[in-house]
């Protein structure tokens, strides 16, 4: 799972009692005491069904960006003649996030996120997307053709609002900020090829 260049510090804001704001970096273990909790701890409780609700509320629109260029396939021609090759390629992109817990399609926070994207933006989140096919390509003598694939990706920031039926560490409501990168349905792959000198 990728991590973001700028990891978003999760902020759990204590609610309903007059105590603290807890700030926790995702995945960090810390001594918990009344009024503080880590991101992992809170979202794990959500995943375990120990919260009344955990709703993801987006902040800002969905931003799009080009994903990393992946090597998807290649073919090497070590002869002294041009050749036409059929090159198979395959590339895939998943979903990465800053929460530090199980954030898959089947997890509770994953389902909450998916529902929020659907209702908030009327788009469908795609947790994994794979492209594969084959193409015919001329490969020059003693050359190698490399097929690259780059996915148009989406980035969403937002806050999980967790509600506990009975106070958890003194509070009914906790807020956890974070960021998710992946793709919504229909975002295209950008394919390109490059011919380089082969090591024959």
């Amino acid at each position, binding site marked *: 799972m990728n991590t973001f260049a700028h990891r978003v510090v999760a902020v759990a*804001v*204590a*609610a*309903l*009692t*007059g*105590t*603290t*704001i807890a700030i926790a970096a995702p995945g960090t273990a810390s001594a918990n005491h009344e009024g503080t909790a880590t991101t992992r701890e809170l979202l794990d409780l959500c995943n375990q069904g120990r919260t009344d609700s955990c*709703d993801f*509320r*987006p*902040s*800002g*629109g*969905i931003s799009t960006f080009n994903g990393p260029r992946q090597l998807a396939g290649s073919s090497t021609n070590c002869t002294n003649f041009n050749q036409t090759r059929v090159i198979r390629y395959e590339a895939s992109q998943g979903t990465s996030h800053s929460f530090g817990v199980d954030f898959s399609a089947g997890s509770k926070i994953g389902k909450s996120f998916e529902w*929020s994207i659907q*209702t*908030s*933006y*009327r788009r469908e989140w795609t947790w994994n997307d794979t492209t594969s096919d084959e193409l015919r390509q001329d490969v020059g003598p003693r050359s190698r053709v490399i097929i690259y694939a780059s996915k148009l990706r989406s980035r969403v920031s937002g806050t999980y*609002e967790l*509600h506990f039926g009975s106070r958890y560490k003194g509070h*009914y*409501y906790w*807020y956890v900020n974070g960021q998710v990168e992946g793709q919504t349905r229909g975002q295209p792959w950008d394919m390109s090829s490059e011919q380089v000198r082969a090591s024959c």
Partner: protein
Amino acid sequence: MGFLAKAGKAAVLGTVTAAVTALLTAAPAQAAKHCDFSTSTGRYSCSGSGSVRNPGDVIGGKLFTGLDYSGDSLTIWVPRPCPKNDQVDYWVDLGGDMRNKVSSVQAWSSCWVWLYFADGQRDGPYKGNEPDVGTWANDRAVTVGLS
């Protein structure tokens, strides 16, 4: 013009001064401004919620000047979730930053969001994430109610 909160019938008068100060000192709009207002303290700030809310406050709703929760935002903190008593529990009169500019809203905790217009009409309730309040309500809200 500022943010005037009323919890039930009791208006929080200190709000006006705080909001006016905040609005007068606000920098010209460049990056999106994310501001907070608490109905329990009457305080308003665009530099984090810490100086605005009571520690026990929860988020009742969020307003955005752009579609899809983009643009400037106002987070409304309330002392407790809306009790679902068939009445509007928290009122916020919008100041210059938000007045006639709301385009998308979010309802938080148990609160629903109502948008009131200058002509006395209203739209809502918005019960969750609403990326587009629609043509009729867009850029018309002058007061927000949370119920």
